[in-house]
């Protein structure tokens, strides 16, 4: 093998760089996201239920919000008839955030964990924290 030493050193450097992020966080537990549901509004509810099932909201809320946006802004349809027949105003600020009244303790928990930055909040106004 020509230049074996150089190749091996190169390989070691390469592997070092590749696994460097893992070494850096090794042993450190990244805080598990804990979206909190203990807002006053949710505590008041008799049946603690979102507009759809928990599983559906967990995996599909972003798709749902996109569809809501188009229905309201483009088609002028403002009411959501949920699977269980209940009616909701399709509004991020006036419906979602009325219950989930802390963006920090709810939305941000998972979004920060998975490092996504939804641009909803560039325009939409989050409820005041810590009231």
């Amino acid at each position: 093998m020509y230049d074996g030493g150089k190749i091996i050193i190169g390989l070691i450097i390469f592997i070092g760089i590749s696994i460097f992020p893992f070494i850096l966080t090794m042993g450190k537990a990244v805080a598990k996201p804990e979206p909190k549901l203990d807002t006053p509004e949710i505590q008041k509810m008799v049946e603690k239920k979102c507009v759809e099932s928990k599983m559906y909201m967990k995996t599909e809320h972003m798709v749902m919000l996109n569809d809501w946006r188009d229905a309201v802004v483009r088609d002028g349809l403002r009411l959501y008839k949920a699977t269980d027949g209940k009616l909701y105003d399709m509004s991020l600020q006036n419906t979602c955030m009325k219950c989930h009244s802390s963006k920090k303790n709810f939305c941000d928990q998972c979004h920060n964990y998975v490092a996504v930055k939804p641009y909803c909040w560039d325009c939409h106004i989050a409820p005041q924290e810590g009231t």
Partner: protein
Amino acid sequence: MSIRRRDFLKIAGVSAIAGIGGVSALSLLKIKGSEASSYIEDPKTLKGKRWAIAIDIQKFQTPEDYARVINACHSIHNVPDIGNPKEEIKWIWTESYEHSFPSQDYGNPYIQDHLKKKPFLVLCNHCDNPPCVRVCPTKATFKRKSDGIVMMDMHRCIGCRFCMAGCPYGARSFNWRDPRPYIKKINPEFPARMKGVVEKCTFCYQRIAVGLQPACVEASKGAMIFGDLADPNSEIRRVLSSRYTIRRKPELGTNPSIFYIIGG
């Protein structure tokens, strides 16, 4: 082991079918949970084919009369006050007679004094033939088929400002900076905008949807009349047929929906 051509085709066919079936089963699973849901119009929504406003200029006398109407709009819609005329954001504001109606004034310096000195309330005209909509490359601004409102979908606006060049009334404002720090008192029930989008009057679509008149009309105490041009029995049609009204730059063919009651 060699595979015969015939067998290969059979396997390929079966797996393709399985693949297609698999995909549709998956997508069925995905929409489950909302498959029985639907979007419906709020029954409170005001019904009209072409919304319009008539502004009775005689009823605007003191600066307070104008300010009340402008503040009503700007406060509920989180319109910022940047404090720099070059970056001004406005949905409804005042203009002089010759700026509002340049074609009427053209070559006539002897027009009645009370018109020459009067400020006129101006806003988006919700044109029936809106040039802003024709030039918008993303359909971020569009005319609602149901009621003629020229809407803004701020989610889609890319800030190209073609619509600002297209609008002959200066009804659109561009956000040169993040407007949030310049909003005096935030209305938590309405969104704000971000840097890089264009905004304008949206005819209070969110109020019409719950059975309310536009905020400016409500605050005007009868000086502005809102209604459906397509309904011959509406109040606005009655006013338009009995009093002399003018519109801004009608010669451009935009067919504005905002009328100014000039005469008795």
